[in-house]
């Protein structure tokens, strides 16, 4: 495939439990509302025909977890699947309420940039570590793969090859790292190990306010439980989203997958296309 300039790549494979493609449609719509010229690709093994996506690409090496409801093991394929020379990969259960086009300039200082740290709905950097114990125990960088930039380059190839190898060898890797027995091989941990192996300074941007996302996990947002949609109010204003009245300035990782239904119900009015899965 001849790769074109730059674009966003969303990874979404439906499972029995979760309609990830619906999440991806909502994410793509949120981007196109403020950046209509953005190129957006979807990597999926589902059949998807929705013109919100400029590209729908299959997993080049096939589904690596056919019997699993968790498709994390397919993530490394993004490097070979992307139709772009420069890619920002986004996890499907996010929205991008404001343009992040200015991020590209900063990203170009590296071949790979994985976002570091996260914010709460008040736009504050969180200090909550209860979801990141394995990172602290192993002194791993606090990376979040949900936003990852990569350029079609030798280094990015090495990075994602290493990510693939760690995923495939997880049964051994988990015995080496502290607390690994309790981790099923989550993408953030795998990325963190890859980043630490290849040099954290080569895979992250230190001392920058972005890339960064709002993470809607319970403890990060002073909630009693994990479902923020039951405790906080939300309002939509085109691509803007306000959570408990606070305007969200960064991509929002809403994590409660059913929320995509609310998003698409709202976004529908701005688009004429329909999803066919």
């Amino acid at each position, binding site marked *: 495939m001849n790769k074109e300039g730059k674009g966003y790549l969303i990874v979404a494979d439906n499972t029995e439990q979760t309609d990830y493609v619906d999440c991806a449609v909502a994410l793509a719509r949120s981007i196109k509302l403020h950046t209509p010229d953005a190129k957006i690709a979807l990597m999926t093994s589902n059949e998807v025909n929705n013109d919100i996506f400029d590209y729908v690409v299959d997993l080049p090496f096939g589904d690596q977890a056919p019997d699993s409801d968790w498709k994390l093991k397919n993530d490394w394929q993004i490097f070979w699947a992307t139709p772009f020379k420069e890619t920002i990969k986004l996890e499907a259960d996010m929205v991008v309420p404001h343009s992040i086009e200015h991020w590209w300039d900063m990203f170009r200082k590296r071949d790979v940039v994985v976002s570091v740290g996260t914010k709460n709905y*008040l736009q504050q950097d969180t200090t909550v570590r209860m979801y990141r114990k394995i990172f602290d125990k192993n002194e791993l960088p606090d990376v979040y793969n949900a936003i990852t930039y990569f350029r079609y380059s030798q280094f990015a190839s090495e990075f994602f090859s290493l990510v693939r190898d760690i995923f495939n060898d997880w049964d051994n890797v988990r015995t080496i790292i502290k607390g690994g027995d309790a981790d099923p091989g989550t993408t953030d941990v795998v990325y963190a190990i890859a980043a630490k192996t290849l040099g954290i300074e080569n895979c992250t941007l230190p001392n920058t306010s972005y890339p960064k996302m709002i993470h809607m996990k319970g403890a990060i*947002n002073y909630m009693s439980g994990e479902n923020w949609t039951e405790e906080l*109010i939300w309002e939509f204003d085109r691509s803007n989203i306000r959570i*408990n*009245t*606070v305007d969200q*300035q960064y991509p929002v990782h809403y994590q409660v997958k059913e929320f995509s239904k609310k998003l698409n119900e709202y976004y529908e009015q701005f688009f004429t296309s329909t999803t066919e899965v």
Partner: protein
Amino acid sequence: MTRGFLIFAFDNEKVSYFKHAVWTADRIERFLNLPTTIVTDTKSAETQTTTHDLIITDAISGGQRNFDLGQCGGEAKWYNVNRYQAYDHSPYDETIVLDSDYIVNSDQLLKVFDTHHDVLFHRDVYDITGRRGAENYRTFGHHNFPHYWATVLFFRKGKEAQNFFQCMDMIKSNYTHYSKIYKYHRLPYRSDYATSIALGMIYGHRIDAMPTIPWLLQTAFSDVKVIKMGDTEYKIVYENWNKITDERQKYEIEVKDMDIHCIDKHSFEAIVNE
């Protein structure tokens, strides 16, 4: 461009707010050379004569409050809701709405009028005892919304300030609704909460854009005694844990020429009666 101060002061069975307001207005005149208008009710205004301008209105109660913290029997009605009327009541183009328990000891507040913001108040407090007593006031509600202080509230008349006070009015009228969103106690009414929420509204719900008076509000909290030693000299008496003896110990510090937000009403009463 006219400038002045506005103090809301409605007496209850426990606190003579009007007397406090007159005392504070006298000091504003002396240290800042600016006029003060006191917004009060007939009953309070009859307690003492004053040369300061008065606006007589009905006091609105925000509920019961204990005015003797740490003791029983100090409950009384708290008339703290009228602040949303400040825009309409103020005769000045630029106004500082000041709590009646603010001890003016310098001309520091004149600097507030230099701001280019049309609505401005304090985000952060400095605990005068250094005990980090302000930590619990950084946020309010279960989900930790930023807490601003209505103690010193500057506004310049115009569209933005008008919007702000209309928002305060709306919040006051729907206070239970907002208490459910921000998850704070519905009673008593808190001006600080209403002003914090209203400021968020006029800044487009972007809390990183909300401005603040660029210094900390020097505060003596409710468990701190403030004793007047001279015209602008005060002794601050408080207790703290002594880590060496492992028991509570009384401490004293002295401050001079420093404005103080004196929350302990008994201390303030003693100062005013001196």
